[in-house]
C-alpha cells in the first residue's frame, strides 16, 4: 500500500476523507434539521407535524429532496442569467468551505489553521453575495428588497457578533479553533461561565446573520413573498435552503467551540475513575443517552399502524442501539479513539442544543420591524458589546497583574455590563418616546 501512493500526498488523505464525509453528510443533516424544525414547531403548537412519510415523518426530508430535484427550473425572462445561476452556488459553496476549519471532535477536522476562527468568519461573510446577487439578478422588486435587507442586516450584526466573539478570544488567547477548545480544557471551565454576555450577544447576532426568525426580514413572507428567493424554484431554491441550514450549523459550531467547550464533555475537570480502570463514569453518559433513545424506539415500534412502519421504527431503534454500542465500545479503546468518537458526540449534541434555541426563538418571538432591528443592532448590541469587552479586559488585567480570582473579576465585569445595558435600555426608551412625540 505504501508504495502505491507517493509519500507527498499521504498527509492529505485524511483531510480529503473528512471533507468528502462533510460534503456528503451535510445535505442529509440539513434535511433532518428541517424535519426537526417542523416537529418542534408542531410540538409547540400542539400538533403532530409530518406523520405520513415513514414513521413519525422520518422519511419526509428524502421525499422533499426528491420532489425538489424533479421540479421545473423556472428562470425569469429578464433575469441576469449568469448571476442568477451563479448566486445559489456561491452561497452553498461558501457555507461548505467554512467547515474546513471547524473541529468536530479532536480527530475530525479538515485543517487546523492558526487563523481558524477568522477564516470561518471571512468565508461565511462571502456567502452574503449569493443572497445579494441572487436577489438582484432575479429582476424582481421583492427579491431586490430582500437582498438589500439581508446586506444591511449582515453588516450591522456582524460587528456586534464579532465583538461578542472577541470576549471569548481574550480568554483563549488564540485564533486556532483547536487551541481555543484546549484553552477551555486547561482552564477547566467553558467560557460561557466567564463571558455570559458575550455569548448572549453572539447568539442574537448569529440569528440575525443567518436570517432566522425573529430577524428573518430578508424573507418576510407577509411583506416580500419570499424575499431574495422569490424567483427561485426547484433545485436552485433548495441550494439556498441548504446554504441557510449549513450556515446555521456553522454559527452553532462557532458558538460551541468558543463558549460551550467544543468537543469537551460537561464537567471537564471532574475525574472519577472507576476503581482499577481508566474508564470514567461521566464518559458513559453518551452511550446511556443513546441507549435510552434506542429503547424508546423499540417501545414505539409495535404501536405503529402499518407493518412497514413497525419495521422502519425497529430499524431506527437498531441504529441507535448500534451507535450506543459504538460509544460504549469506545470507552475501552485507546484514548485518542475514545476522545475522537465521544468528542464528535458532544460537539454534535451541543450544536443541536444551540439549534434548538434557534427554533425555540423562531416559534416564540414575533418578527421585528426593520427600524426596530436596526435600533437593536446599532444602539443596543454594539455599545453593549464594546462595554462588555472593556470590562472584561479590565477583569483580565486585574487577574493577570494583581492575581485576583478570575471568577470574581468576570462576575464583576458582567455586573457592570448589565448595569450599562439597563442604562442603555432606559435611554433608548426615553429616546423612542421623544421620537414619537416629535412625530405627533
Amino acid at each position, binding site marked *: 500500500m505504501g508504495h502505491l501512493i507517493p509519500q507527498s500526498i499521504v498527509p492529505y488523505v485524511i483531510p480529503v476523507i473528512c471533507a468528502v464525509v462533510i460534503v456528503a453528510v451535510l445535505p442529509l443533516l440539513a434535511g433532518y434539521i428541517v424535519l426537526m424544525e417542523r416537529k418542534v414547531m408542531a410540538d409547540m403548537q400542539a400538533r403532530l407535524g409530518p406523520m405520513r412519510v415513514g414513521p413519525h415523518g422520518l422519511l419526509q426530508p428524502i421525499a422533499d429532496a426528491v420532489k425538489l430535484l424533479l421540479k421545473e427550473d423556472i428562470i425569469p425572462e429578464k433575469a441576469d442569467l449568469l448571476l442568477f445561476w451563479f448566486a445559489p452556488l456561491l452561497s452553498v459553496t461558501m457555507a461548505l468551505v467554512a467547515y474546513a476549519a471547524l473541529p468536530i471532535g479532536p480527530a475530525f477536522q479538515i485543517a487546523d489553521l492558526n*487563523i481558524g476562527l*477568522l477564516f470561518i468568519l*471571512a468565508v461565511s461573510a*462571502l456567502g452574503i453575495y449569493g443572497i445579494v446577487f441572487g436577489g438582484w439578478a432575479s429582476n424582481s422588486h421583492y427579491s431586490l428588497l430582500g437582498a*438589500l435587507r439581508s446586506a444591511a442586516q449582515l453588516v450591522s450584526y456582524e460587528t456586534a457578533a464579532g465583538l461578542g466573539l472577541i470576549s471569548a478570544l481574550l480568554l483563549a488567547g488564540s485564533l486556532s479553533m483547536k487551541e481555543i477548545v484546549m484553552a477551555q480544557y486547561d482552564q477547566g471551565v467553558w467560557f460561557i461561565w466567564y463571558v455570559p454576555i458575550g455569548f448572549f450577544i453572539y447568539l442574537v447576532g448569529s440569528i440575525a446573520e443567518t436570517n432566522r426568525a425573529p430577524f428573518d426580514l430578508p424573507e418576510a413572507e407577509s411583506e416580500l413573498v419570499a424575499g431574495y428567493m422569490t424567483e427561485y424554484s426547484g433545485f436552485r431554491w433548495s441550494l439556498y435552503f441548504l446554504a441557510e441550514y449549513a450556515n446555521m450549523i456553522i454559527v452553532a459550531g462557532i458558538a460551541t467551540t468558543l463558549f460551550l467547550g467544543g468537543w469537551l464533555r460537561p464537567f471537564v475537570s471532574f475525574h472519577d475513575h472507576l476503581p482499577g480502570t481508566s474508564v470514567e463514569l461521566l464518559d458513559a453518559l453518551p452511550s446511556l443517552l443513546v441507549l435510552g433513545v434506542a429503547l424508546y424506539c423499540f417501545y414505539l415500534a409495535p404501536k405503529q399502524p402499518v407493518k412497514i412502519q413497525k419495521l422502519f421504527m425497529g430499524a431506527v431503534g437498531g441504529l441507535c442501539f448500534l451507535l450506543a454500542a459504538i460509544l460504549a465500545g469506545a470507552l475501552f479503546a485507546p484514548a485518542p479513539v475514545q476522545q475522537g468518537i465521544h468528542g464528535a458526540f458532544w460537539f454534535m449534541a451541543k450544536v443541536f442544543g444551540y439549534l434548538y434555541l434557534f427554533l425555540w426563538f423562531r416559534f416564540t418571538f414575533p418578527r421585528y420591524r426593520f427600524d426596530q432591528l436596526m435600533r437593536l443592532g446599532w444602539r443596543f448590541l454594539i455599545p453593549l458589546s464594546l462595554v462588555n469587552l472593556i470590562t472584561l479586559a479590565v477583569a483580565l488585567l486585574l487577574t493577570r497583574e494583581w492575581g485576583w480570582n478570575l471568577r470574581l473579576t468576570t462576575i464583576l465585569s458582567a455586573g457592570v455590563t448589565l448595569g450599562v445595558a439597563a442604562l442603555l435600555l432606559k435611554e433608548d426608551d426615553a429616546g423612542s418616546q421623544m421620537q414619537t412625540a416629535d412625530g405627533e
Partner: protein
Amino acid sequence: MAALNSILFFFLSALAVVSAILMVTRRNIVHGAVYLITTLLATAGIFLLLQAEFLFVVQVILYVGGIMVLFVFVIMLVNLDVSLLRFQFNGQRFVAGVLALALSAQVFLAIWMGRNSLHLPEPAASIAAKNTEAVGDALFQRFMLPFEIASILLLVAMIGAVVMAKRRV
C-alpha cells in the same frame, strides 16, 4: 513546491489584472462590482501565497465582506436603468491616449530599471508559524504611534459621518 507557487502566483495575478480590466469596461455596474470582488479575492490569494494569512483574512473580511457589501448595497439602491442608458465614455481620446502612454512609459521604465532585483520574495519561514502574533507585535510596539493616529483619523471620520447624518433628522 516552488513551481506550484509560481503557477498559483501567475494565475492569481492574471485573474486580478483581467478582472480589474473587466471591472472598468463593463457597462453593467453590478457586473463591475463582481469583477472588483474577484480582483480583491485574487489579491488576497497572493497574500496567502506569501504566507501572510492574517493579511489574507483581513482583506477578505474587511474589503470583500464589509466594504464591498456596502458598495453593492449602494449600487443597488441607485437606479440602474438610467445609468445603463447614460453615455459612459466621453470623447477625450487624445488626452487619454497621451496620459496612458506616459503612464505605461513610466511603469516600463520602473520595471526596466529594477530588472536585476525582479524576483518573487521568499516567505520568511521563521515568522510564518506565528504570523498573526507578528502583525500584532509590529502594530502595537514598533508602529504604535502611526497605528493610533490612523485609529483617531477613522474615529474622526466616523463622528463626522454621524454629525452630518444627524443634521438631517
